């Protein structure tokens, strides 16, 4: 095996709690109704192409991503459009969604639902990109950035490495892990398709050392592919963050404010590689994804293959329901996920996990004065000074925030995780980032 690599600055090591690690992916049946949000990706919301009363099939396009950064949205079920209306999203604000009453499970024409593995792809890079775009594939690693945009190398830049993010550094989550075990071949084919689209000769799959079975499985398969290798990594959060992963895998540092392509890298999540495979080889749009349901309050931690738009409450039911003392339900990982105020919200393309915790585990500690212990600054993987940024933001000194490079913060939460005085560092940093972002935008006008 290779020697273990990792990134240099900062990082923390939260308890792993991979409770659903051994649970194979179970396919859930479609629910009675689904609510498919029009904004499930980074960028402009998609524009609906169906109206109330229309009959739709699973895999049929129902909203089109029209601007440069946007993505198509497909129906994940077959049935009738009940309405196009606002439904509360994960933060409780109403967002436009297409609500479909499910009737049967019929799929649109052209979608190949055969599980048989198809390795080779004959499409040209342009065809691959347009297929990925048509199928509404977005990054499944969390940011839900439309994948077709990332598969086109901008003019004047050259991609050297495709880095595949199999790190899954967040505690509790096991979706990528299971996928790497169960769909290794498909992922590998997806990677080679992405390599073809990008025109790169090398792909490196970064996997943390706490998933030896996945490392073995993919290394095994990688032998059959040229230019693809697996790089085991030391366990450290947030290794899965793009810039940290590039640093860990190829030792390059993406300059502040720049994209990975600046150092010749493109990063995709393993789930995205799988989605690309399905889109290109099977013509199957992104209508379902693997979601981990886990956490100390979940009776049966599981990994489900779920249709987009399924209410979270159904997933929780399928995992045995919630005990009385549950006090927090999180969409995503415990470090970066969003706490839900209502469990009836739908699963989106970006939902990698649903975690439930009792109060004892997830309540924030009481806030005290910052004792200037420098722990936050030691763990910040971006080399920032969170205590300072947070204080500046709290004092509304946003110009100073900008000078201290608040925009470099990727909101990994390491600082808040480690702070012994329970300072809500990241909360204030987010306020600061928000305001500095507005300032920067106003300036460029």
């Amino acid at each position, binding site marked *: 095996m290779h020697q273990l690599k990792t990134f240099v600055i900062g990082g923390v090591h939260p308890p792993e709690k991979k409770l659903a690690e051994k649970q194979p992916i179970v396919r859930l049946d479609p629910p009675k109704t689904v609510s498919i949000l029009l904004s499930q990706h980074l960028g402009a919301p998609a524009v609906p192409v169906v109206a109330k009363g229309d009959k739709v099939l699973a895999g049929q396009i129902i909203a089109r991503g029209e601007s440069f950064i946007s993505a198509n949205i497909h129906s994940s079920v077959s049935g009738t459009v009940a309405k196009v209306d606002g439904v509360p999203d994960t933060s409780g604000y109403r967002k436009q969604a297409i609500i479909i009453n499910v009737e049967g499970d019929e799929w649109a024409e052209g979608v190949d639902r055969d599980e048989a593995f198809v390795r080779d792809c004959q499409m040209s890079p342009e065809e691959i990109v347009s297929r990925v775009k048509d199928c509404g594939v977005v990054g499944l690693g969390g940011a839900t950035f439309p994948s077709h945009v990332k598969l086109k190398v901008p003019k004047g830049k050259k991609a050297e490495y495709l880095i595949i993010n199999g790190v899954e550094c967040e505690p509790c989550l096991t979706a990528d892990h299971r996928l790497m075990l169960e769909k290794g071949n498909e992922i590998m084919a997806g990677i080679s398709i992405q390599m073809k689209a990008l025109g790169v000769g090398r792909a490196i799959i970064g996997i943390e050392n706490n998933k030896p079975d996945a490392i073995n499985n993919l290394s095994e398969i990688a032998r059959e592919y040229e230019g693809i290798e697996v790089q085991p990594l030391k366990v450290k959060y947030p290794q899965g963050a793009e810039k940290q992963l590039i*640093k860990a895998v190829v030792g390059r540092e993406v*300059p502040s404010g720049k994209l990975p392509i600046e150092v010749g890298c493109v990063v995709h999540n393993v789930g995205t590689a799988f989605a690309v495979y399905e889109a290109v080889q099977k013509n199957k749009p992104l209508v379902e994804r693997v979601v981990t349901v886990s956490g100390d309050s979940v009776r049966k931690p599981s990994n489900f293959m779920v249709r987009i738009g399924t209410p979270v409450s159904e997933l929780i039911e399928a995992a045995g329901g919630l005990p009385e003392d549950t006090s927090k339900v999180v969409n995503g990982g415990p470090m970066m996920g*969003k706490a839900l105020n209502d469990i009836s919200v739908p699963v989106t393309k970006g939902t990698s996990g649903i975690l439930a915790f009792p109060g004892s585990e997830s309540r924030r500690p009481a806030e*005290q004065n910052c004792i200037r212990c420098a722990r936050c600054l030691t763990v910040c993987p*971006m080399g920032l000074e969170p205590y300072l940024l947070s204080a500046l933001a709290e004092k509304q000194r946003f110009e100073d925030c900008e000078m201290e490079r608040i925009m*470099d913060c990727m909101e990994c939460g390491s600082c808040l*995780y480690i702070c012994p*005085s329970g300072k809500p560092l990241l909360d204030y940093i987010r306020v600061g980032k928000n305001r500095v972002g507005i300032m920067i935008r106003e300036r460029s006008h």
Partner: protein
Amino acid sequence: MKVLTVSGSPHFHADHSVSRIMYGVVFSLIPAMLVSFYFFGLAAILVTLTAVVSCMAFEFLIQKYLIRGPMTIFDGSAIITGVLLAFNVPANLPLGIVVIGAAVAIGMGKMTFGGLGKNPFNPALVGRVFLMISFPVQMTTYPEPSAFSTRLADAVTGPTPLTFLKGGVDQGEKVSELMPQIPDYANMMLGNMGGSVGEVSALAIILGGLYMLARRIISWHIPVSYLGTAAILSAIFWMVNPEVYPDPLFHLMAGGLMLGAIYMATDYATSPMSKTGMIIFGIGCGLLTVIIRLFGAYPEGVAFSILIMNAFVPLINRGFKPKRFGEEIKNG
């Protein structure tokens, strides 16, 4: 299901807390405390107890009646201040003066600025230096160590190795003649010498320091750069003229250098945040300590140097930031 909680991420929190850290420090101080009780007896116990109790009491009173903030006396930081203040005064200091010191340390050194973490200067040292200058006589009469003594204020007094040596050298005597008259290095290491309550035993303090290092309460940067600089600088002088300047080993074990480097210079609130900053800070403390010891009016310079460097901390924090990710473009 009960009411859900909504909060920003992250939803996990490390197993740290202010009081755990602080009590860790208190725990690590136990060896030094035991040594001081052994050599200075009941007097040391009384001084330590008085300092701790009055520090907590002053913090309580100020917090309750002046600042009107949440109660903080059990976070352990006032206990540390109390213990370290006691460790920095002679065992036979009248208890009234100890109480004044505690009032100054907590009231002026800490609560004036809003309490834990906000103070720019090390509270215990503010207390000590205040007492040094206010009560020079009482603060410079040290009891002779004697095992398990139960004597209180009337103990036999004697000089500390530092005052003895400095006094002698100032009178033109030679270091080589003075050295045999102070405890040998083994005794100094153990703490069998005149000095403040808790500073005498380098060994016990190092032990506590190792414990704190192991628990990651402190990092090595400040103690190592502080002690290292002090050793190197004193070694240079020693090599130039060993009859006027004592050797580095003596400097390391005499007086409060060990206590200062491991416990007082490392105080979070009053030391720099970045690792480079910490090293600069340690070097500054080391230089100043040796200069004051060798050339100043006072035989001991640890407290002054740390306080002076405390004043530089904001500037150090401004000038020595952690290395930012993506700062230099390194295209492999």
